[in-house]
């Protein structure tokens, strides 16, 4: 018979499922180019076992010469096999990982605090978290990485009583390491935390540590075997590569501004894909709860797993602080679900404390009203404002464009598409579901089949009719056929033809 906490957890998971899957294909509006690249490369693997460049089962995906880690792309393969190549298939693994992360948060918090009520609160706060929702609803590798990291930590903590879970924990960390660029810094930090703070347990494992260690070493092989390319992306965004004055001060400020109340509760991340305008990464009502929860953990010395929680809290922004710009909500997704756990602890302390007992119903009901308003406002901003405001950040318009091109392409000898809005070739491949084998053999990012991709200007080289697609602010061919609009009804592309 299911007990009450489990029933409540099921309801929370159901809520998190609804919030992550509702209108998943249309909000965020459009697929941004990393999602499209991941999707098409996974499609290419599915059809040919090779990536877009013809490399057989790569351990690093070249993509846009940023050499993406492989795990998330490989999780897209079964998703695309089941749901066909499209927005849903590309976002499904991340959304599912988001739901599972909510469930894992319950088990982690229960293990850390020993209190199922705090665990339920933490799972609920993560289920509705703007920060987590934003990245669960896009095909973000970082979200999947954090799910695997959390799984690794939980398996590790539970392995103290069931040692057979230890190799599984290592597998999880190994997969996380190969899921996202920032994991190359984050996973080693997590492992150091676990090694340092669980010395007794580590010693008691004895020889059982051999297999997990081997698994972790093996998991570094994809990175080490392609080392120069694997660190390319990191070098491009690192503050140390940018030859700026006063790098130490940049590093400190980059670290500190991830704790900025402005970033967390008011302004959010300035990058359009990373947060909703008008809200922070967390809800305003969480501010006093986090303060209470954090205060409780800093002040009380003898709480189990205190060191893990506090050091996680202090180390989480390091991968983001080493890069530019900051604060960066995606690179600091490593924080989750710590903020939710502190909020939960704070709420529990508030409910159970004797402080101002007489007016407790008043301040708890005020908190409830404010939190309800925060949540409803966020949902309004996310579902009404966000798709209209942030279309350009998500390359909104490409789907309609390529759909139109697909209908008329047989009427033209050549089709030229501007790259000014970025990576048109991959959108063309993706939405046409172009045969990967044909592309690998005869195509490249400048041209394939009758398609040509240009920046700023295009010169007709083939005889016959040409379809020319430019952005709405560029010049056009002599005869304009159609304009493509985004969700906010702003023109994005202009389609013209030339004889």
């Amino acid at each position: 018979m299911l007990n009450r906490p489990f029933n409540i957890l099921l309801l929370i998971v159901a809520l998190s499922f609804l919030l992550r899957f509702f209108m998943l294909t249309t909000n965020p509006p459009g697929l941004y180019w990393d999602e499209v690249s991941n999707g098409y490369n996974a499609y290419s693997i599915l059809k040919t076992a090779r990536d877009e460049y013809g490399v057989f089962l790569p351990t690093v995906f070249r993509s846009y010469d940023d050499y993406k880690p492989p795990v998330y792309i490989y999780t897209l393969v079964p998703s695309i096999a089941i749901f066909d190549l499209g927005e849903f298939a590309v976002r499904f693994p991340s959304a599912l990982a988001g739901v599972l992360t909510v469930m894992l948060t319950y088990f982690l918090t229960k293990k850390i605090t020993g209190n199922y009520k705090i665990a339920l609160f933490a799972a609920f706060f993560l289920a509705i978290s703007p920060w987590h929702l934003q990245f669960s609803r896009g095909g973000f590798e970082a979200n999947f990485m954090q799910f695997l990291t959390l799984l690794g930590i939980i398996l590790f903590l539970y392995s103290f009583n069931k040692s057979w879970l230890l190799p599984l924990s290592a597998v999880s960390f190994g997969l996380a390491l190969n899921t996202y660029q920032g994991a190359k810094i984050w996973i080693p930090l997590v492992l150091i935390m676990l090694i340092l703070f669980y010395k007794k347990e580590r010693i008691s494992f004895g020889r059982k540590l051999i297999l997990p260690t081997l698994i972790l070493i093996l998991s570094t092989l994809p990175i080490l075997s392609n080392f120069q390319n694997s660190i390319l992306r990191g070098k491009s965004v690192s503050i140390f590569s940018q030859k700026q004055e006063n790098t130490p001060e940049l590093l400190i400020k980059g670290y500190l501004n991830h704790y900025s109340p402005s970033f967390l509760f008011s302004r959010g991340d300035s990058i359009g894909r990373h947060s909703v305008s008008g809200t922070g990464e967390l809800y305003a009502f969480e501010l006093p709860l986090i303060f209470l929860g954090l205060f409780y953990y800093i002040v009380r010395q003898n709480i189990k797993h205190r060191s893990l929680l506090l050091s996680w809290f202090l180390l989480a922004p390091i991968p983001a602080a080493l890069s530019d710009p900051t604060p960066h909500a995606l690179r600091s997704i490593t924080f989750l679900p710590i903020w939710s756990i502190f909020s939960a602890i704070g709420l529990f302390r508030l409910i159970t404390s004797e402080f101002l007992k007489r007016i407790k119903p008043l301040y708890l009901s005020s908190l409830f009203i404010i939190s309800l308003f925060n949540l409803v406002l966020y949902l309004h901003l996310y579902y009404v404002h966000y798709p209209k405001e942030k279309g350009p950040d998500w390359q909104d318009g490409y789907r309609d464009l390529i759909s139109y091109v697909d209908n008329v392409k047989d009427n033209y000898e050549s089709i030229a598409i501007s790259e000014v809005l970025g990576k048109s070739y991959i959108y063309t491949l993706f939405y046409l579901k172009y045969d990967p084998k044909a592309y690998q053999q005869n195509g490249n990012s400048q041209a394939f089949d009758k398609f040509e991709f240009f920046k700023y200007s295009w010169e007709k080289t083939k005889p016959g009719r040409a379809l020319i697609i430019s952005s709405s602010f560029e010049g056009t061919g002599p005869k304009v056929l159609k304009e493509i609009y985004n969700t906010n009804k702003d023109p994005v592309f202009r389609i013209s033809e030339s004889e």
Partner: protein
Amino acid sequence: MKIFLLLVISAFIILKVGWNVDECGIRSSLQAVVPVVWYEQTIDGSNQNPLITRFFHNKIGIFVSQMARCYFNRIGPEFIFDSVGIFGLMFIFYLICNLSTKKRWPILTVIAVFSLLPVLSINFPTSKLFVDFLAYFYKLLAIIGLKAFVDRR
């Protein structure tokens, strides 16, 4: 040796400069209300129920959120770091933890209220004065925190 360290670190704290003096208070928040309301109502669109639009995008709510943003800028770690440096920031944090542990809520309330001063200004010369005053207040807190740390048992 203790006194020497105390003096050196205090000098670092006192001599640190470079905090942001941009105006952010009542005047700038009021100025932001009309364009923000217009922008958000435009995004909502004419098809949206006016009650819903007014409920979510009202002048009071926008004014309060702008003021909160200004306040967060002044209590945020970047401003404190710019005012007192990394050592000063650590000792302010130590002081606040110390005061919280000893449940010195009135003192903490005073600190929180002082940080409101630049936000409550109504013109630029006054706001700059209050921002500078706040920066020096943080320097004082940092030195008190440093002394408390040095004297701890």
